[in-house]
């Protein structure tokens, strides 16, 4: 056994040994200030990743005697090296792994030298377990990509390199392993390095450190090997000990802290707990709370060990604010002058990790930072062929596929591009039925042109507007065929509301098409956009406290439901003006049906364009049974005093507890 122990590692182990024995306090102080390197080993099946880690642990004296005795016994029993030690068994800890001689899931191992501490994640090479490789890579600063010298660059070498790069690992080591099996041939080494370089440049890896090694024999792992006199670069451990990793770039950026939890031990304390994802924070700093956009000032930075004058990226703290502002889990507290973006549509890169393929259109949970929303993914723009880096057309993504797809969320997300922030740009998708983590995703950018428009917080909010007008905002949405009587009835309703002293506004389809929507025609796409715009306008009007009446054919259920979902529960009143086609055509007040029948009008609802009647409208008006005046009377009663409606606006209690 001991003859495999290199002299240098023995020397370095003894040096630390001396200090521990002589002055433990000095050693502890030194140890406490060692830097930490997190790295992974990756590459194709059987390239020797686990063996290499086992070797590193062994050579850096991290293996205890009892573990060594167990390793020797295990090696004889289940090892792949006959009577010799199988170092992979030090890391392949699951029964199934030892039986099959492969790695299935990541193993996290810990070791330290005089100069550094290390957390290494040994990842599986099997394609089937790619998601476990991604798990290991997501927290690593450096990747050791292994290649079997006999086999050269393989598909998995490419896939893992691409994934490592995608996930943001900036330091790469190319360990050409099993050099013992190719007679430590310089030419073999050079050829593989050249192959890899050609591929790596194409995926944005412009620098990597190639090292010829044998994990099994320990060549160039901790000591320089006599077998490779032609190699003059660093040995693996030297490089790992000295490579400059640099700070997380987010740490020098503006302040960001996703709120995890609101700390309320009593009425006098309300703190916002989180881990600082970017920049730093001090009492007195002006901060903005996203997505609301409200600003406040940091009062205290609270910790168990006392208040801090400043807290930096990576610290877990609790912040109190000078004002009683709304802020809860999922919000992000950020530097007021440089807040992150807020959006609900994104271009993303997705690594699919589930056996069941991705279903575009199906809602998944999306977790980003401390935000949990529902997301719908569009069909992918393309999938990446990991061998050629070509963009392939794809309808979906299967297990381990990597692709780019647009995605929308049901609520605005506070985010940053993944390039800028792992914490605010990396997300996972969770299946709503099984709760399994089915994908990892990176936000590339938001799709809305409005990405840099922040919500502006307004002190006079919608409740205040409504209270001043003494009413509850509503949107009465009149839908029905052309000529069914929508405008006539809506007009009569508004007159009655006006007479009752209510504040209202009537948006009429024809009028809107003369101005706001004069660029739109009558194709399906234009009809959808027409209603979207009207919906947004109506929403702003209800925000200002008005009772809005909208009279639009609005033939598609989906768009009416979209407008409904834009408003608070109970404010959207769908009024179906139910006039049969024959009746409307008979009336034909504007002479349009005649034109349509004559083929002079295209896309006319009811003739050559469909009308989807509402399924559960709040109010149905059968104009063959009711006169317009009766209809208006009925609607006003329904809106102001309707049975299912509490007449809140007549109820003085309604104003209580609303800060009015």
């Amino acid at each position: 056994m001991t003859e495999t122990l290199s002299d240098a590692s023995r020397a370095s182990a003894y040096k630390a040994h001396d200090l521990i024995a002589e002055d433990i306090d000095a050693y502890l102080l030194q140890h406490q200030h060692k830097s930490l390197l997190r790295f992974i080993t990756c590459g194709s099946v059987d390239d020797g990743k686990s063996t290499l880690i086992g070797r590193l642990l062994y050579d850096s004296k991290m293996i205890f005697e009892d573990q060594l005795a167990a390793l020797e016994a295990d090696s004889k029993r289940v090892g792949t090296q006959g009577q010799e030690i199988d170092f992979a068994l030090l890391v392949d800890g699951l029964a199934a792994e030892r039986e099959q001689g492969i790695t299935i899931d990541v193993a996290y191992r810990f070791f330290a030298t005089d100069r550094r501490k290390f957390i290494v994640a040994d990842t599986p090479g099997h394609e089937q377990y790619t998601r476990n490789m991604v798990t290991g890579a997501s927290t690593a600063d450096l990747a050791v990509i292994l290649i079997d010298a006999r086999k050269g660059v393989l598909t998995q070498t490419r896939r893992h390199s691409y994934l490592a790069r995608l996930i943001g690992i900036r330091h790469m080591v190319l360990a050409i392993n099993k050099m013992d099996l190719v007679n430590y041939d310089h030419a073999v080494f050079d050829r593989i390095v050249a192959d890899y370089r050609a591929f790596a440049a194409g995926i944005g890896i412009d620098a990597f450190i190639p090292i010829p090694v044998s994990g099994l024999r320990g060549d160039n792992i901790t000591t320089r090997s006599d077998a490779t006199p032609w190699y003059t670069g660093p040995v693996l451990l030297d490089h790992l000990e000295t490579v400059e990793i640099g700070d997380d770039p987010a740490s020098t950026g503006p302040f960001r802290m996703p709120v995890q939890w609101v700390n309320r031990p009593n009425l006098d304390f309300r703190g916002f707990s989180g881990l600082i994802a970017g920049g730093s924070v001090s009492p007195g700093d002006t901060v903005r709370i996203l997505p609301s956009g409200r600003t406040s000032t940091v009062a205290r930075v609270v910790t168990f060990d006392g208040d801090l004058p400043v807290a930096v990226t990576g610290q877990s703290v609790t912040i109190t604010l000078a004002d009683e502002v709304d802020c809860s889990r999922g919000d992000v507290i950020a530097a007021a002058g440089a807040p992150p973006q807020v959006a609900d549509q994104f271009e993303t890169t997705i690594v699919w990790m589930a056996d069941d393929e991705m279903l575009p259109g199906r809602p998944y949970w999306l977790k980003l930072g401390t935000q949990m929303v529902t997301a719908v993914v569009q069909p992918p723009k393309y999938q990446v062929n990991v061998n050629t880096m070509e963009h392939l057309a794809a309808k979906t993504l299967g297990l381990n596929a990597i692709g780019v797809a647009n995605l929308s969320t049901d609520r605005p997300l506070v985010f940053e591009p993944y390039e800028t922030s792992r914490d605010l740009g990396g997300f996972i998708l969770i299946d709503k039925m099984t709760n399994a983590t089915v994908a990892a995703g990176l936000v590339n950018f938001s799709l809305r042109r409005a990405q840099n428009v922040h919500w502006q917080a307004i002190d006079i909010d919608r409740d205040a507007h409504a209270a001043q007008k003494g009413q509850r905002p509503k949107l009465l949405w009149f839908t029905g065929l052309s000529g069914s009587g929508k405008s006539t009835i809506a007009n009569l309703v508004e007159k009655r509301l006006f007479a009752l002293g209510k504040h209202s506004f009537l948006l009429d389809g024809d009028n809107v098409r003369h101005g706001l929507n004069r660029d739109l025609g009558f194709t399906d796409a234009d009809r959808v956009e027409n209603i979207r715009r009207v919906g947004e306008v109506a929403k702003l009007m209800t925000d200002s406290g008005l009772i809005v009446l909208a009279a639009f054919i609005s033939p598609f259920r989906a768009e009416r439901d979209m407008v409904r979902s834009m408003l608070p529960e109970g404010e959207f009143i769908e009024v179906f003006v139910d006039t049969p086609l024959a009746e409307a055509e008979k009336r034909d007040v504007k002479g349009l049906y005649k034109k349509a029948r004559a083929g002079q009008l295209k896309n006319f609802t009811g003739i050559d364009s469909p009308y989807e009647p509402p399924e559960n409208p709040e109010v149905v008006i059968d104009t063959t049974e009711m006169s317009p005046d009766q209809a208006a009377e009925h609607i006003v009663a329904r809106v102001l005093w309707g049975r299912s409606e509490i007449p809140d606006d007549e109820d003085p209690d309604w104003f209580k507890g609303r800060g009015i």
Partner: protein
Amino acid sequence: MQLYAACTAAPAGFEGVSTTAKATSSEARISAERLTHLQRLEAESIHIFREVVAEAENPVMLYSVGKDSACMLHLARKAFHPSPPPFPMLHVDTTWKFKAMYEMRGRMARESGMELIVHQNPEAKEKGINPFDHGPLHTDMWKTQGLKQALDKYEFDVAFGGARRDEEKSRAKERIFSFRAANHVWDPKNQRPELWRLYNARKSRGESIRVFPISNWTELDIWQYIHLENIPIVPLYFSEMRPTVERDGLLLMVDDERFPLLPGEEPVMRPIRFRTLGCYPLSGAVISEAATLPEVIQEMLLTTTSERQGRAIDHDQAASMEKKKREGYF
């Protein structure tokens, strides 16, 4: 519900205050402050605690009174300060712990302000299951079954545990949020991917999650943290003259009168301490002079055997820890 109007351009003053002034001041601060390895570990553990409390319905902290539990409890208190940790601690008791451990348990419950739940498997109690007569059945009934009973009884959906990845080869493979199917079984071949700091805490009824906030701490980290933070630990970790007998290569402490001495066996006073604590008849002591924390750390660093060597549980059979975990052991 509040009202926000979208604006097409940043409002006046928005741009003005932006990056320039702010970034320079923060850059200056950063260079002044660089987190140490232990500070990073602490921040990570605190973050984990808070994620669980925010997302779980009914979390609990498994408290075994050992040094890892002591650290975990300390971190939990840090995570929620000035509130007490918003969950109870659960001790799955075997009735065979060291006396000193029961004392420490009471003290920590008082100091932390947390509710302490003690669960003893009534069936094991009734059958008089003990480590002397029943071997592996003792651990299975008191600990594995006892734990499952307690989690089911109180309907805890998430349980914090103080396991570390450097302890053992199957632990090295486990996620920080370790999902358990109904019946508490662990499926090591089918773990959820766990990326960045994003933990998936979702589960259906009957399923649960074990969360290990100190997964990435090493034994040395734990000791160094206890030292730096002055965390109270059971005195058994420090050397003292204690009554012992030697059995099957393990040095056992005679902690109370229930210890059945063999004919001719006589407890011998020896300077001993423990690297890990469990049921006293199953915890092997080491001969040691280390009576202070730095001495304990020094000894730990110079030793040539792993801390688990003193635990009878791991010697039962190869891959025993994994097997126990699959069956629902913590």
